[in-house]
C-alpha cells in the first residue's frame, strides 16, 4: 500500500509520513480521520496542505507531534519518521524533547494556546530552560533577539497575550515557536483569523524566517489563495486522504483530480464575474461514513463504476505531480471539449 514513488524519499526529507492512519472511537462507527497518509516534507520547503473542514488537516498536524493519545479512544497506525526515528513510538520525555524544540507548531488562535497568566517573555524563558537548559540572563537576551526576528518591539516581552492585537499575538506565537531553533514548523491556519493586510505580513514573515533559519514548513489552510501565496508544493486532503500532490504552479495550472479542479473553479474572484461558479454537489463525507471506493465518487461528475468499488492509489503522473484518481485530468479535458 501507499505512495508509489519509485525514487523512495530523497535524503533531503526532514519529515516523512508513512501510511498514517488515525481512527477515533465514537459510537458504533469509528471516525476515520486519516486513512493512509504518505507525505514527504523536504528540507527548506513550504508544503501547503489544503482541505475543507473535517478533511483531517489538524489531526494530521497533531499526529506528527504525537498528540493524539486518548486512553483507548484513538487508534494510530503508520509512521512519522523524523531524524531516523518513528515519533509515534516515542513516549514521555522522549517525545517532549522533540515537541516545541525540533518540531514546533503555530496555531490559528493564539489566545487559546498562549497561557493567559504568563507574559510573552516567560513563555520563551520556560522553553529555553526546559529544552536547552539556558539560564535566565542569557535566555532573556535570546528572547529579545527573537522579538526582533519577528519584528515586534521589545516591550512586548512584558505583555500578556490579551494585551496584544491579533497580528501581534501571532508574531509572538511564532517567536515562541522558533525559540529553540526548530527544524520543522507546523502551521495550523495561522492567518485565518487575521485581516488581509495583517495576513500578508505574517505570510511574508514566515517566508523570511524559512530562508533565514532554514525551516521546513508544513502549512495547513482551507484557503487556496493563501496556500498559493506561500507554498512551494501543495497536497490536497479529502476525507482523510491525500488526493493530489504537486508543485504549486502545476496544481493551479493543470490540476488532475476532479475535486481539485472543481474546488479551484468554485472560488469567486473578479476574473469569474458574470459567470456562474462551479459547484461541487453534496457535502464533505462524515468521517464515520466515508464512501467505499474513491471517497469523492458520490460527488464526482466523471465517476465510473470502478470508482465506487476500488480505491485509487496516489500515483505519480508527472515529474512532481501525483493524483489519486482513475481518470486524472479527464474532467478538464471534457470541459475543454
Amino acid at each position, binding site marked *: 500500500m501507499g505512495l508509489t514513488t519509485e525514487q523512495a524519499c530523497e535524503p533531503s526529507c526532514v519529515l516523512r509520513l508513512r501510511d498514517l492512519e488515525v481512527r477515533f472511537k465514537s459510537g458504533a462507527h469509528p471516525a476515520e480521520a486519516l486513512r493512509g497518509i504518505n507525505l514527504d516534507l523536504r528540507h527548506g520547503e513550504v508544503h501547503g496542505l489544503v482541505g475543507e473542514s473535517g478533511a483531517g488537516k489538524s489531526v494530521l498536524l497533531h499526529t506528527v507531534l504525537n498528540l493524539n493519545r486518548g486512553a483507548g479512544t484513538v487508534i494510530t497506525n503508520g509512521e512519522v519518521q523524523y531524524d531516523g526515528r518513528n515519533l509515534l513510538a516515542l513516549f514521555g520525555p522522549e517525545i517532549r524533547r522533540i515537541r516545541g524544540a525540533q518540531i514546533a507548531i503555530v496555531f490559528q488562535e493564539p489566545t487559546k494556546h498562549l497561557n493567559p497568566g504568563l507574559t510573552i517573555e516567560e513563555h520563551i524563558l520556560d522553553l529555553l530552560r526546559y529544552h536547552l537548559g539556558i539560564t535566565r540572563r542569557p535566555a532573556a537576551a535570546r528572547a529579545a533577539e527573537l522579538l526582533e526576528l519577528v519584528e515586534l518591539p521589545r516591550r512586548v516581552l512584558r505583555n500578556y497575550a490579551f494585551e496584544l492585537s491579533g497580528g501581534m499575538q501571532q508574531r509572538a506565537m511564532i517567536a515562541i515557536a522558533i525559540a529553540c531553533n526548530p527544524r520543522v514548523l507546523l502551521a495550523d491556519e495561522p492567518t485565518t483569523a487575521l485581516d*488581509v493586510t495583517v495576513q500578508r505580513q505574517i505570510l511574508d514573515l514566515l517566508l523570511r524566517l524559512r530562508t533565514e533559519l532554514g525551516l521546513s514548513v508544513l502549512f495547513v489552510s482551507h484557503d487556496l*489563495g493563501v496556500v498559493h501565496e506561500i507554498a*512551494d508544493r501543495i497536497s490536497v486532503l479529502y476525507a482523510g486522504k491525500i488526493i493530489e500532490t504537486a508543485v504549486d504552479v502545476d496544481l*493551479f495550472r493543470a490540476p488532475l483530480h476532479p475535486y481539485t479542479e472543481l474546488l479551484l473553479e468554485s472560488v469567486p474572484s473578479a476574473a469569474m464575474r458574470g459567470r456562474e461558479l462551479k459547484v461541487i454537489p453534496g*457535502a464533505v463525507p462524515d468521517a464515520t461514513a466515508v464512501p467505499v471506493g474513491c471517497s469523492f465518487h458520490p460527488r464526482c461528475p466523471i465517476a465510473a463504476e470502478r470508482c465506487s468499488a476500488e480505491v485509487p492509489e496516489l500515483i505519480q503522473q508527472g515529474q512532481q505531480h501525483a493524483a489519486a484518481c482513475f481518470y486524472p485530468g479527464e474532467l478538464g479535458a471534457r470541459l475543454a471539449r
Partner: protein
Amino acid sequence: MSAFVSVENLSQTYTARSWLRPGLAPTHAVRNVSFTIERNTVMGLAGESGSGKSTLARALVHLERPTAGEVRIGGIPLARLSRRGLRKARRRMQIVFQDPHGALNPRLRIRHSLGEALANAGVPRRERAAHAIQLLRLVGLAPEHLDRYPRAFSGGQKQRIVIARALAGNPEFLVLDEPVSSLDVSIQAQIINLLMDLKQRLGLTYLFISHDLNLVSYVSDTIGILREGWLVEHGPADEVLERPRAEYTRALFGASPSLHRAPRALRS
C-alpha cells in the same frame, strides 16, 4: 432620487458612560457615510475588522437607530417611522448573518422557525405550511426537511434555511452580513450561486458585506470600502477594481491572496 436604497450622512457613535472613567472618548463606528443602491443590484461592502461594516448594516435597517443621517428604502425614510411602522417596513428588508448556527432556535423544528417568520409577515395560519414548503423549495431544500431540528442540518443547509426565513415576508432588500464566511469553499459556491439566482428571480437588491475581497469583486455591481468608519471608496465595481481612487483600496486588494496571481516563484 430613483435609487432604491439611499443613505445620507449616516453616522453611528457609541458613547460609553462610566463614573469610574469619566470623559471616555466616544467611538465613531460609522462616520458620515452616504451611498445609494439601485434596485435589483448588489452593492458589495468590504473592509477590515473593526471598520464598521456590521454597524453600518445594523444602522441601515434600523436594528439600531443611527446617531445621525437618513436612510430611505423604497422611498420611505426609516427615521420617521414609529416602532410599529418600522416593524412593518422590516418585512421589505431583512438581514442574513454570518453564523447560521446561532441564527436558528435549536429547539424549534424548521416548520416552526419558518412559521414564525410567516406569521410576522401576516400569512394566515392555515396557509403557512404550504408557504414554508415553497420557501424550502426556493432555497433548494425538500418538504421532508420541515419537521427536522436545526441540528440535523449542515452549515450550508442551515444557511439555506436562514435565507428561506429571510424571504418569508417577500422582502425587496437583503443585507447579507458575511453570509458565507463560516462555510467551506465547496459549500460557499452553492450558497453564492443560490443568492445570485434568487436576486434574478425575485428582483432583490443586496448589500453584500464581506471581508473577502475576491468574493466582493465577484458578486458586486458597485463596491464600497470602509475604513475606520469612513467610506473611503465607492463606485461601479469595474472602476473600483481597475482604477481604485483610494490608496487604501489598492493596498487592500494588493494584500488579498489570489488564485490568479502568478505564483511566487515566477514573481520574484
